[in-house]
């Protein structure tokens, strides 16, 4: 049993939960993820480890309510328990001797970026964080991220906070200003990660993205998560989730994410009794 210690909303449709999982917290590293099975009949949902506390024996998740799976997880309250939590899965983020790193989080991607930024910061790397939200009501964890960043830039689609526009605008400015960047790590919607890759590619700036492919097992035995990277088929759960952004076939990734769109909508409408999104 995986008891929920704490649970609250961070922003509209964005939820936080801290879960008791001593075995997982002992091993968890930034960049890794969990598979959460809310109750016996639920799907296996992959969610990044947004934080961990080895002393308390807990791991935290931040997730966006999308379809039935994530809504079900959101319906759990502190004190209740999830049916199953598997982890830590995937490979941790590696520090490769960089001096200046830029981490980019888009929307829900701000959460997984936080422990990564913290790790680099603790290791004395200069961290610039660029985070993008839809608008000021959707801000979360900007304060946490600021505490582990040397520089911090916020963008919103509507300009209600920070720069009006996209994270890539800010990144492009940094590049134009010839600021030193050894590597960019970007996590967010695939379309954002692709845009970041397109900005850094002409300048040969190493860029890492964390892919959010569909998954079933999360442990290398089903192939649901396969992606093409540099012309080769990889399993996101075992070979990733982080890959060289310049080699990822984003078109295929986005195509595969749409595989169950019709069914997902039905399931969600049936679960919530409406179609609000």
């Amino acid at each position: 049993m995986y008891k929920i210690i704490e649970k609250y909303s961070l922003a509209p449709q964005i939820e936080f939960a801290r879960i008791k999982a001593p075995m997982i917290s002992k091993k968890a590293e930034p960049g890794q993820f969990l598979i959460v099975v809310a109750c016996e009949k639920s799907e296996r949902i992959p969610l990044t480890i947004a934080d961990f506390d080895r002393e308390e024996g807990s791991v935290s998740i931040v997730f966006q309510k999308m379809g039935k799976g994530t809504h079900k997880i959101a319906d759990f309250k502190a004190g209740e328990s999830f049916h199953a939590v598997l982890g830590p899965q995937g490979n941790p983020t590696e520090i490769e001797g960089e001096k200046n790193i830029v981490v980019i989080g888009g929307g829900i991607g701000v959460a997984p970026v936080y422990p990564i930024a913290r790790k680099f910061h603790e290791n004395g790397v200069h961290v610039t964080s660029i985070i993008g939200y839809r608008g000021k009501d959707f801000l979360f964890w900007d304060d946490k991220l600021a505490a582990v960043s040397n520089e911090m830039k916020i963008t919103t689609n509507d300009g209600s906070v920070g720069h009006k526009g996209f994270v890539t605008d800010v990144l492009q400015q940094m590049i134009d200003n010839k600021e030193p960047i050894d590597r960019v790590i970007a996590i967010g919607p695939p379309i954002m990660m692709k845009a970041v890759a397109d900005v850094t590619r002409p300048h040969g700036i190493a860029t890492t993205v964390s892919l959010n492919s569909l998954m079933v097992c999360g442990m290398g035995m089903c192939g649901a998560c396969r992606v093409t990277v540099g012309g080769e088929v990889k399993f996101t759960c075992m070979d990733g989730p982080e890959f060289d952004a310049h080699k990822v076939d984003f078109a295929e990734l986005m195509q595969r994410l749409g595989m169950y769109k019709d069914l997902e909508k039905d399931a969600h409408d049936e679960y919530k009794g409406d179609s609000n999104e």
Partner: protein
Amino acid sequence: MSDRFTAIHMKEQPAEDRRKNFSEVPCGYTEEEAILEANRCLQCKNAPCIEGCPVAIDIRSFIGHLQKREFDKAINKIYEADILPCVTGRVCPQESQCQARCVLDKKGDAVSIGSLERYVADRDLDRRREALKDAPVDVSGKTKVAVIGSGPAGIACAADLNRYGYDVTIFEAFHKAGGVLTYGIPEFRLPKAIVDVEINSLVQTGVKLVPNALTGRSFTIDELMAEDYKAVFVGSGAGLPQFMNIPGENLNNVYSANEFLTRVNLMKAHRYPEYDTPVKHGKNCAVIGGGNVALDVARTAIRLGSEKVYLIYRRSQEEMPARHEEIRHALEEGMELLALTNPVAYHGDESGFLEKIECVKMELGEPDDSGRRRPIVKEGSNFFIEADVCVVSVGSTPNPLIAMTTPLLETTKWGTIKVDDNGMTTMPGVFAGGDIVTGAATVITAMGAGRTAAASMHEYIKKL
């Protein structure tokens, strides 16, 4: 109603009915049928059938007891060698094992050893269910050993280690135990209620089961050994799905057999939306392969509601490695066999969903290493099969995670773990067995390997 040379076959659900449900196909013997079938056995002195069984069940004796209606004696005879007879009686490839050696096979039908085994084992299920009500046995204070994986190899190893008097913990990566018995072989061939009895019986004898524990990520074998476990058994199976690396294989609705079957068997996608996990079966579902796995997929697709289910196999029907009963059942249920056919590319629509499969015709050449005739492409024979779902069932290999994270463990070039005659790996105290050692094989060999390893582990620990 029967003569010596004609088998009593189990009654089966008619093909028309079973196409629409996931209930078991053969309905089991009545007592009278079982006795009639048992009475066909000649009780041969040398009992060649026994040599055909990978774990050498004393077939003659158990059938002898059955002839005298000594049901308890019959089941206990089987348990001496096989601790999962409900399972093996159903899924063993009997026609190439025990029954292939039966003397009656030369003149008529072999004795239906598998069916009799199933009958005797099923008869014992009620008693076993009843026994589950007792409190679990307390094993605290005993020497600790670990088993990785809860498939047939792990179950058998854990059961024996428990009998030798150890405190056994099984670490399973999935949230539910049973290995292929749970996520691979479908309900209509192996009811999950039976697998549950096997798992619950283990837990009840004091074996601890830790699900959601992926060795290599959650912890390493070195860490387990450092943590008081005196010996470790690795029974992690061969679960890494193989693809053919042909164009279009990542199109939407092209699945691996593992994914398709896991969605249905483990996640219960056939009961979607009561269960949350979906699966696509398509109007026209094509399955690539010719083994048990491919047939399980094809028969699952039929039950999910595909109008057409094609089995695309590169050799001819005679070379198909699947159990004969499976092939017969699938054909009765309406599967179309496209033998001597091989896919070369998948083609999709503008949103990336599979539309058709480009195939070539094959012909058989000279026999290869496996003794089967090698399939050769007929140049220029390309043609298309309309299919909106395709399931690639061309085999699986060991997942490399455990070997990658255990420096002392040596593997072969096929990725299987090297073991000696006692099942010990190149790392002292670490044993292995089942598909992780042999590559994808059978339930009964995995079970046998688990038991051999348990005995060796016992010897090993005694000498520590």
